[in-house]
């Protein structure tokens, strides 16, 4: 849910992310730090506020590589099919 809010592409403060959520500010802060530690979220500072925004690159990178391997398997399986059904 947190990631979905952040998907809009803008930076959000913890207060904004807590708004409308059933989770406590503490729980959201903890969650944000986990996402930050795996590189999906970037934290920046604006004045006295900590802001968080999504870094889409790690997710895109995983999907890109997987799509590539997936495509290679499509080709290999097509060759298996041709080999068996000739």
């Amino acid at each position: 849910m947190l990631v979905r809010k952040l998907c809009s592409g803008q930076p959000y403060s913890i207060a904004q992310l807590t708004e409308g959520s059933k989770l406590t500010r503490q729980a959201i802060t903890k969650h944000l730090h986990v996402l930050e530690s795996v590189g999906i979220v970037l934290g920046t500072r604006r004045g006295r506020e900590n802001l968080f925004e999504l870094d889409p690159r790690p997710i895109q990178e995983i999907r890109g590589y997987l799509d590539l391997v997936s495509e290679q398997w499509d080709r290999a399986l097509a060759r298996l099919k041709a080999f068996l059904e000739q």
Partner: protein
Amino acid sequence: MANDRIAKRMELKAPVSRVWRALTDYREFGEWFLVRLDGPFVPGQVSRGQITYPGYEHVKWEAVVEKMEPPRLFSFRWPHPKSFEKSDAPPDYSSKPTTLVEFRLEKTATGTLLWLSESGFDKLPSDRRLEAFRRNDGGWTQQMKNIENHVAKKP
């Protein structure tokens, strides 16, 4: 598609025993996968060979066979090296994060249903994934189009 696995299914007009042989006989595997293997697949042992895919003949094949449970399950683990570029030193398999490849076979009215799964991508370090993506972007796709044309001409 999940972020950590690839899953494919394919209906084949051949009996299960025939498909099993195409997967687990090292010479037959080599013919469609495009690799020249040194010897038979043996559970628990390393399988080595040389890729015969045009443009990638410098790449070594290496995998550890996990399970061979005829005629239903054949699996192996293989590493994803940082780079396959010709200009580089041989692929660095040293720290060997591996993914698991599993083939499962089911008998059907028309032949065989083959399931392919490759899992464990979440365990690959991100620099390895990114490097592989960068070096491959476009390259594999084009090469595979070439071979697809070749195979279509010579079934």
